[in-house]
């Protein structure tokens, strides 16, 4: 593989990790959703580039699915949900930004150390993709831990799934059946989550998940 090809792949995959960090930094819901769309866009470009250099045409389908569903459909749907719940002006006061960022850096370095050790001898591109994918997954988990708003937890969950797609890309893609079924299960998850958001809102007048914890304590 050409050095320049690898450098460009490295740039896109590194850009994905960077956008995941920017997701952590957003505290407004609309900005968060736009950033989520940007993350999916970067992922689609990255997958398409790897399809080109690996000469694997079925990865183009993965890129297209990512582009249509995760960069356009899901952000638009979440936009509408946020608009109808009237929570777009809420600012989440969570763990402050700098500690979250430092925790994120620690997670990224952890995943790099682990993955570079574990995958010795594998293909260069696969090793790199696996390391970056693990960091995107961990950053998605970190986002779910540090946020209390249900919508941003959903975004964290979806960005975690973006990491999985990157991991699959490095290993020359999943089988197409798996790919499509994952995409549809994500869509169904979105519908279920949407219904749940409205139910939670109806019951507790808020989408802050701490309200759920409180209710359990009260009942006991």
């Amino acid at each position, binding site marked *: 593989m050409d*050095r320049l090809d690898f*450098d460009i792949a*490295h*740039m896109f995959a590194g850009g994905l990790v960077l956008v995941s*960090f920017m997701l952590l930094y957003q505290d407004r819901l609309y900005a968060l959703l736009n950033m989520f769309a940007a993350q999916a866009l970067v992922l689609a470009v990255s997958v398409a580039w790897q399809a080109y250099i690996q000469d694997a045409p079925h990865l183009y389908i993965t890129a297209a699915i990512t582009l249509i569903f995760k960069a356009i459909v899901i952000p638009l749907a979440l936009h509408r949900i946020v608009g109808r719940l009237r929570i777009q002006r809420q600012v989440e006061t969570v763990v*402050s930004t*700098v500690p979250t960022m430092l925790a994120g850096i620690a997670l*990224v370095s952890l995943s790099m150390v682990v993955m*570079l050790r574990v995958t010795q001898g594998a293909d260069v591109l696969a090793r790199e993709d696996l*390391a970056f994918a693990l960091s995107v997954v961990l950053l998605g988990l970190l986002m779910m831990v540090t946020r209390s708003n249900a919508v941003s937890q959903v975004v964290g969950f979806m960005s975690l799934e973006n990491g999985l797609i990157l991991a699959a890309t490095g290993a020359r893609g999943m089988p197409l059946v798996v790919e499509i079924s994952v995409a549809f299960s994500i869509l169904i998850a979105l519908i279920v989550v949407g219904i749940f958001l409205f139910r939670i809102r109806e019951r507790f007048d808020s989408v802050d998940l701490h309200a759920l914890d409180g209710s359990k304590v009260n009942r006991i």
Partner: protein
Amino acid sequence: MGLIRDLSIQISQMLAVLLLAPLLTGFIRKAKARLLRRQGPRLLQPYFDLVKLVRKEAVVAQSASWLFRVAPYIIFATTWVAASLVPTFATGLLFNWSADLIAITALLGSARFFLALAGMDVGTSFGGLGSSREMMFATLAEPALIMIVFTLALIARSTQLSTVAGFMLSPAVGLRVSLALALIALVIVAIAENARIPVDNPSTHLELTMVHEAMVLEYSGRHLAMIELSSQLKLLLYISLIACVFVPWGLAPVAAGFSAHAIGAAAYVGKLAGAGFLLALFETTVAKMRVFRVPDFIGVALMLALLATLLRFMSRGL
């Protein structure tokens, strides 16, 4: 003969940064004023201000110690040395061996240390407030700068600025995402360290928001002139550093002869003007941040720099 020539080039570089620094500040002020459709002060106004300050009597508070009087000269000396170490129009100067990124960071750090001490020396509340805020920003900005240095050192395999600039000019540099991250981080650090607008307003004396001005509030006369000149030099230093590492075109080796140096000097002045205009444009389009939002802003620089180092480490480990 060679030694005299090298020495004269080195000295001309030291004088050039000293003479260009007020002009750069004047240019930025003029550009900002023109962007706001004001006439603005003359381009040479900072020189007149400095001359006026030097002529005036220096009033020193009764409670001030010797440190208060010495600090402006120390700050000026360290900043000037640091600024003249950065290659501006030619690389490989006589004092090249000491033009080390870590040494420059250390010189700037000691200048900041003395400025903070001088701010607290008189014992007024504003000085202490300014010093504590400056240190709060520095605890994030300085590690970010060190991480940027590490990234550059990992890529160019040297912390010497001439070598780094030479490497950036060669085709071996390739396409590096780490360099882009390091550039953004360095710009954020430069904005924060020079007390430019989103972090601090250089032309305000509003008590609640000022950082740099609060520390130097007690200074007057020639002491204030030294402080002003060193903050202008610091701005020039950061712009030269960014230009030298990230846009090194036009930099000539020291032995290249007069015409190459003239081209290098013209390119350098062009880079300064471009950077000054961009800074003025940026400052007119953003609003100042709340002080407690600033650590988040500088934290982004730290995060980007750490990420750049990690990505570089990663692509080299493969």
